[in-house]
C-alpha cells in the first residue's frame, strides 16, 4: 500500500529521519518495499529577498536587483554573498521576499538558468513568476512570498512541494493498516505517541435535509443470509453535480498513485484510502423501480445469472457469489468486488445511493479468484472490514460528497442520520486475557508491565489493569487478527522490539540428532556415484506430456501421469515419471555448448497416479547418464568412449557399497524396454526385488532429445535400494595358502551368456574353485567358428587348509571341463 508521508503527517507526527523511520517500520512488521520522491524538486531554486532595486542603465523597463540568497551563494571566504539579478518584472520593491532560480536550475519547459549579460549588465539568476515554475498560469509578475519567509531555503522545501511516498507491504492479517488512519495509529503505537483520527469531525458535518421523500420511504434492505453480509447501509445524496474534483483531492489521490475520475468517485476512493472503508455509489435513478422504490436485497447469485460489471465484461455468476439485487433489475453489483455497469454514476447522475457495507471475507476472496477480478475494495473485504463504524464512515463520505459535488443528504424518518441500516450480524469485541508472567516466560525476556499496557492501549485495545498477573483486554473490532492471547503477545513483542530479546539456545537432556536409514543409504549412493565419476545435478520435476512417448518409455495400463491444473506452460504441464528425459536434455544442453563428456546423476522424485486416486504416488529414484568419455585425452591417457559397461560398472559399485546380495543383470528385450538399445539393456534384480535398469538409450530416443549417442544410463528405485541394502558383508578369512591359477578358454554359441558360463563353471569347480573371472571374449569366424565366441576365464583354486598340488587341480579342471561341455555345449579351447 502506498502511503504519502505528507498525508500521513496530518494524523501523526512522522519522524524526520526517513531512514530510521523505514527501519523501524521494517522491524515492527510493516515492510518498506520502496521509497519514492514525489513532486517537483526545483533544484537550485531558492527563497530570496530583494536588498536593492536600481533601474537598468540601458533599459526603460528592467531593474538591476541585489538579491540575498543566504548561504546559497558564498564569496571566496565562504561568507554569504548577495547576487545581482536583472529583472523585467514591475510588481516588487526592495525588501520583498521572492523566489530566485540560480545558475544550474532547470525550470518546467526546459528553461536552463545560467550566468548571462542583459544589455551589458551581468545577471546571476532569475526571479521567478508562478508560471515560470509551472505552479499556475499567473504571470502578472514575480512571486512575492510572505514577509516571514526564510531566505536561502530550497523553494520546494519551503513550499512543501515534495512528498515522500512509501510503498508498504501490509501483511494479510492487518486489514486495519490498509488505510491512512490505520497507519497513523500503527505509527503512534510504534513510537508511543498520539495520533489524530479525523473521522468524527468529518462525519459531524453531514446534515440530512428534511425535505421530500425520506430515504426509508425509498429504500429497503433485505439480507436473507447474514453470513454473506453482516452489515449493509445506504444513504442518499440528492442534487449532486458530477464533475471534476477540486485540486486538493486530485493531488491527494495522485500522491498514492490513484487517478482522478470525478468528484463522486474520487470521494469514495478517498474515504477508502483514508479509513479503509470501501464504498460504492449507485445512480439512484437507475436503481429504483417505476414506483420510486429501491428494494435492495443482498443475496446469493442464482445459477446462471449474468451481470455486466463496471469494466464492461458480462459475467456469469454462481450461487457461491453474493450480489446486490433488486426484484425489478436483478443483480446490480457483485458484492464487495465490482459494481454493475447499468447502475453506474455518470455525468447525468443527480441522485447517489451510497453503499457502505461489509461482506464475508471468504466469499469475496473466492469470487475474486473465480472471476480474476481484484480491486482495492475486494482486497479489503477479503481481509475483513469492520462492521462497527460503517455508519460514521458513510457519514464522513456523504459530507465530503456534498462539499465537493453539492447536493444534500436525504433524511430518514426512523433516525437523525439519514441512514438505512441492516446489521444482522454484529461482531462482538473479543475479551482476552494477558498473563504477563507467561508472556515474559515465552518470550524469554522481562518486558515491563507498563510498556505492555501502553502498547495495547495505543493499538486501540481497552485494557483493565487490576494489579494481578492478568490483564483483561478488549480487542478492537477493527483488528480481526486479535482473537487469542498469543495474538496480543505478538503485538507487544514486535512493538517492544524483537532485537531486545536476548538470544539463548534450548536446553533439554537426552536429545540426539539422527538421520533415517533411508537418508544414510542415500548418502552411500551419492558417495558411490561421485566416486564413480558422476556429477550430482538437478532438473525440473515438471515434464512435457509427450516426454514418455518421445523417449519410448511405457507404463502398465492404468498408470497415469500427474497433471497440473495451472502449469506455467504446456511443456511443463505434468510431473515427471522418469528422471531420464531431464538428464537427456542436460546431455543435449552440454553437447550443444561443445561439452561432449557428460556424466550426470540425479536423485529425486517421480510421480504417477491412477483413476480414482486423490494423492499421486511418489517414488524416489536415482538416475544417471554417461556420454562421451570419463577421461579427457591427456598426455598419458586416451579417452575411452563410455558405453553400457561403464553404466553397469557404476551400478556394480553401488551393489558393492550398499552390500546388495544376489544381484542379477538380465537382458531386457525391446518390448520390455523400448527406450533402450536392444542387446545393450538389462534389468537389475537383487534377491526378488527389482532395482531398475541399466542400458544404452535407444538411438531413436537420443535423437528425439537431440542428444548425441551413445548415452549409457541407469535408473534405479531408491526405495528398493534402501530396502535391499545390508549394513555389512560377512567377514571372510584372508587366505593363508597360495592359490593355483589356471587360464581356461571355452568356445560357446553366441547365446550363452557370461552369467550362465560363470554359474556353470562355479558349480562345476567344487569348493576348491575360489573365483572365476572372465578376462577375454574373442570372436573370429575362421578360428572360433561362425556364431560362436571364445570366452577365457581365469580360474583361481585354493584351499583354506593346505597348499594344493598341481595334480589335484588338474583333475578338478578336467572334471570342470567335462561338466561345462555337458551343460553348455562348450568346446574346450587349447
Amino acid at each position, binding site marked *: 500500500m502506498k502511503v504519502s508521508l505528507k498525508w500521513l503527517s496530518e494524523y501523526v507526527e512522522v519522524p524526520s529521519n526517513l531512514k530510521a523511520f523505514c527501519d523501524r517500520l521494517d522491524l515492527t*512488521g510493516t515492510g518498506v518495499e520502496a521509497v519514492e520522491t514525489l513532486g517537483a524538486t526545483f533544484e537550485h531554486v531558492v527563497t530570496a529577498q530583494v536588498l536593492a532595486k536600481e533601474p537598468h542603465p540601458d533599459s526603460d523597463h528592467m531593474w538591476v536587483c541585489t538579491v540575498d540568497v543566504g548561504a546559497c551563494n558564498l564569496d571566496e571566504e565562504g561568507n554569504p554573498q548577495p547576487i545581482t539579478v536583472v529583472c523585467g518584472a514591475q510588481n516588487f520593491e526592495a525588501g520583498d521576499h521572492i523566489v530566485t532560480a540560480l545558475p544550474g536550475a532547470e525550470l518546467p519547459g526546459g528553461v536552463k538558468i545560467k550566468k548571462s549579460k542583459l544589455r551589458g549588465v551581468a545577471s546571476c539568476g532569475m526571479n521567478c513568476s508562478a508560471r515560470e515554475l509551472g505552479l499556475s498560469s499567473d504571470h502578472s509578475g514575480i512571486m512575492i512570498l510572505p514577509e516571514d519567509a526564510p531566505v536561502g531555503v530550497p523553494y520546494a522545501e519551503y513550499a512543501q512541494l515534495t512528498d515522500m511516498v512509501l510503498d508498504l507491504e501490509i501483511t494479510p492479517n492487518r486489514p486495519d493498516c490498509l488505510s491512512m488512519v490505520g497507519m497513523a495509529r500503527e505509527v503512534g503505537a510504534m513510537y508511543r505517541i498520539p495520533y489524530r483520527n479525523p473521522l468524527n469531525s468529518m462525519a459531524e458535518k453531514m446534515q440530512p435535509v428534511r425535505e421530500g421523500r425520506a430515504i426509508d420511504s425509498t429504500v429497503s434492505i433485505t439480507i436473507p443470509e447474514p453470513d454473506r453480509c453482516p452489515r449493509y447501509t445506504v444513504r442518499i445524496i440528492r442534487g449532486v453535480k458530477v464533475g471534476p474534483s477540486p485540486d486538493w483531492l486530485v493531488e491527494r489521490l495522485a500522491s498514492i498513485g490513484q487517478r482522478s475520475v470525478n468528484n463522486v468517485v474520487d470521494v469514495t476512493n478517498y474515504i477508502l484510502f483514508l479509513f479503509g472503508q470501501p464504498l460504492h455509489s449507485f445512480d439512484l435513478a437507475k436503481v429504483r423501480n417505476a414506483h420510486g422504490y429501491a428494494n435492495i436485497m443482498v443475496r446469493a447469485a442464482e445459477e446462471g445469472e449474468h451481470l455486466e460489471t463496471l469494466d464492461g465484461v458480462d459475467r456469469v455468476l454462481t450461487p457461491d457469489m453474493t450480489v446486490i439485487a433488486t426484484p425489478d433489475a436483478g443483480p446490480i453489483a457483485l458484492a464487495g468486488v465490482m459494481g454493475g455497469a447499468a447502475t453506474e454514476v455518470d455525468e447525468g447522475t443527480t441522485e447517489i445511493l451510497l453503499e457502505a457495507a461489509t461482506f464475508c471475507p471468504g466469499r469475496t476472496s473466492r469470487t475474486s479468484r473465480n472471476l480474476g477480478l481484484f480491486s482495492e475494495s475486494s482486497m479489503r473485504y*477479503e481481509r475483513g472490514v469492520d462492521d462497527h463504524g460503517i455508519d460514521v464512515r458513510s457519514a464522513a463520505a456523504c459530507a465530503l460528497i456534498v462539499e465537493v459535488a453539492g447536493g444534500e443528504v436525504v433524511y430518514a424518518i426512523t433516525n437523525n442520520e439519514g441512514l438505512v441500516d441492516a446489521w444482522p450480524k454484529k461482531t462482538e469485541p473479543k475479551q482476552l486475557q494477558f498473563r504477563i508472567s507467561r508472556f515474559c516466560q515465552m518470550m524469554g525476556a522481562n518486558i515491563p508491565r507498563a510498556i505492555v499496557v501502553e502498547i495495547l492501549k495505543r493499538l486501540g485495545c481497552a485494557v483493565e489493569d487490576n494489579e494481578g498477573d492478568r490483564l483483561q483486554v478488549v480487542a478492537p473490532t477493527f483488528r480481526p487478527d486479535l482473537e487469542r492471547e498469543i495474538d496480543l503477545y*505478538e503485538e507487544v513483542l514486535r512493538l517492544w522490539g524483537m532485537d531486545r530479546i536476548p538470544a539463548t539456545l534450548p536446553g533439554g537432556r537426552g536429545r540426539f540428532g539422527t538421520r533415517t536409514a533411508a537418508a544414510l543409504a542415500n548418502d552411500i549412493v*551419492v558417495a558411490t556415484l561421485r566416486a564413480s565419476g558422476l556429477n550430482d545435478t538437478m532438473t525440473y520435476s515438471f515434464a512435457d506430456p509427450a516426454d514418455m512417448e518421445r523417449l519410448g518409455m511405457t507404463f502398465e495400463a492404468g498408470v497415469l501421469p500427474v497433471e497440473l491444473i495451472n502449469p506455467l506452460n504446456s511443456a511443463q504441464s505434468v510431473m515427471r515419471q522418469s528422471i531420464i528425459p531431464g538428464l537427456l536434455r542436460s546431455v543435449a544442453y552440454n553437447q550443444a555448448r561443445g561439452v561432449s563428456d557428460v556424466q550426470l546423476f540425479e536423485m529425486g522424485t517421480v510421480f504417477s497416479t491412477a483413476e480414482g486416486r486423490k494423492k499421486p504416488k511418489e517414488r524416489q529414484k536415482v538416475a544417471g547418464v554417461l556420454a562421451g568419455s570419463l577421461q579427457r585425452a591427456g598426455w598419458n591417457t586416451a579417452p575411452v568412449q563410455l558405453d553400457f559397461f561403464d553404466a553397469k560398472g557404476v551400478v556394480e559399485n553401488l551393489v558393492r557399497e550398499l552390500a546388495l546380495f544376489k544381484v542379477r543383470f538380465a537382458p531386457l528385450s525391446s518390448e520390455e524396454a523400448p527406450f533402450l538399445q536392444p542387446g545393450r539393456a538389462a534389468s537389475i534384480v537383487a534377491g526378488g526385488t527389482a532395482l531398475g535398469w541399466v542400458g544404452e538409450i535407444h538411438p531413436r530416443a537420443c535423437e528425439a532429445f537431440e542428444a548425441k549417442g551413445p548415452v549409457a544410463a541407469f535408473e534405479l528405485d531408491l526405495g528398493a535400494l534402501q530396502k535391499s541394502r545390508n549394513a555389512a558383508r560377512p567377514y571372510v578369512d584372508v587366505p593363508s595358502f597360495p592359490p593355483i591359477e589356471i587360464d581356461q578358454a571355452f568356445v560357446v554359441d553366441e547365446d550363452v551368456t557370461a552369467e550362465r558360463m560363470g554359474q556353470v563353471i562355479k558349480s562345476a569347480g567344487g569348493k576348491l574353485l575360489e573365483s572365476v573371472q572372465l578376462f577375454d571374449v574373442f570372436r573370429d569366424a575362421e578360428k572360433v567358428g561362425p556364431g560362436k565366441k571364445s570366452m577365457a576365464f581365469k580360474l583361481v583354486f585354493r584351499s583354506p587348509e593346505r597348499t594344493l598340488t598341481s595334480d589335484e587341480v588338474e583333475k578338478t579342471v578336467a572334471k570342470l571341463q567335462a561338466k561345462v561341455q555337458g551343460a553348455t555345449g562348450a568346446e574346450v579351447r587349447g
Partner: protein
Amino acid sequence: MAITEELAQLEADTLAAIAAAGTSAELEAIRVAVVGKSGTLTAYLRSMGSVPKEERAQVGKAVNAARVAVEEALAQAKTALAAQEMAQAIDAAAVDVTLPGRAQVIGTRHLINNIIDEISEVFLGLGYSVATGPEVETDYYNFEALNAPADHPSRSMQDTFYVRDLSGAAAAVRGESEVLLRTQTSGVQVHAMEDEELPIYVIAPGKVYRRDVADPSHLPQFHQIEGLVVDRGITFGDLKGTLDYFCKQLFGPERKTRFRAHYFPFTEPSAEVDVSCGICHGEGCRMCKGTGWLELLGCGMVDPNVLEMSGIDPEVYSGFAFGLGVERAACMKYNVPDLRMLLEGDMRFLRQF
C-alpha cells in the same frame, strides 16, 4: 704349465673381466662361464680326481682360493653395478612433476545439495533429526493444518500449482484443487507433530513449488529447509539463539542477524530473519540494495492452533519453526548470477563445486 699357474692365470683373467664388466648381464655371463655348473673354474674342481695325489692338496687349495677370490670380486662388482644401474634407472625415470597426474575422476555434489548437507550437519550437531515429506500434498497439510484455512488471505502470499484430483472431489474455486504441489516444507511440521514423540527437534529439507516463471531470480521449483522444535519452556529467545548460531555456522562468525516482525499463519509471533551483508558488512551496497541486510528466512513461535490441531497442549508445550530458502542461501554464499543455472546440468557449472 702347471695347474697352479693355469689357475693363477684364470683368476687374473677373470678378475680383470669382472672389473671390466659394465652391466649386471655381463657380470652374470662371467659368473656362469667361470663358476657356473660348467664353468672353467668349476671344471678344475670336477677334474680333481685326475690330479696326482701328492699335488691334490695344493691344487685343491689353489682352486678354492681362486674361487673365493672370484666370488668375492663378483659380489662386489654386483653390488656396485646394481647401485650404478639403479642410479641410471632413476635418472632415466625422472619426470616433469608439473605434468598432470593420473587421477580417477571424482564427481561433484550439486551446489544446492551441498548446502543442504552443510545445514543438516549444523542441526544434527544441535541434536535435531532430519526428516522428509511428500512433494504433492493435500490442501490440509500445506495450508489448513498450518492455520491457513480455505480463502485465508495468507494463501495469496504464494502462488500454488494445483494437481488434477482424480478422486472426483471438486474444488470451491475453479482452477484450484485439494491436491497441490507443496509451496513450503512446513507440511512436514504437521506430519512430525502427528507422528513423533515429544519433544520434537527436527529439520526437513525438500523441494517446493511456486508458480513463478523461471528468471534469473525465480524458479518454479526450489528448496526449503524447515525446522521445528516443540518442547517445554521453549522461548522466542531460543529461536533467536538457534538461528543466530546457525547463520554464523553457515556464513561465518562475523555475520550478524536481525529479526523483523512479520506474519505467517502457522507461527505467532512471526519474524523474518536478515543476515548482515557479507560484501559491505552492513554499510549498504548493491548486493543488499543499500540496506546492509540480506533476507534469509522466515520463522516464529509455533501457533497454538497448529499445536492443538496436532493434539499438543499449547499451555504445556511451546515451540518454534523456521523455513529457509536454500537457493537464497546459495546465492548469498556463491553469488550465482542466474538461478536457472541450477537446473541446466551444465558440466562447466557443476564441476566448479
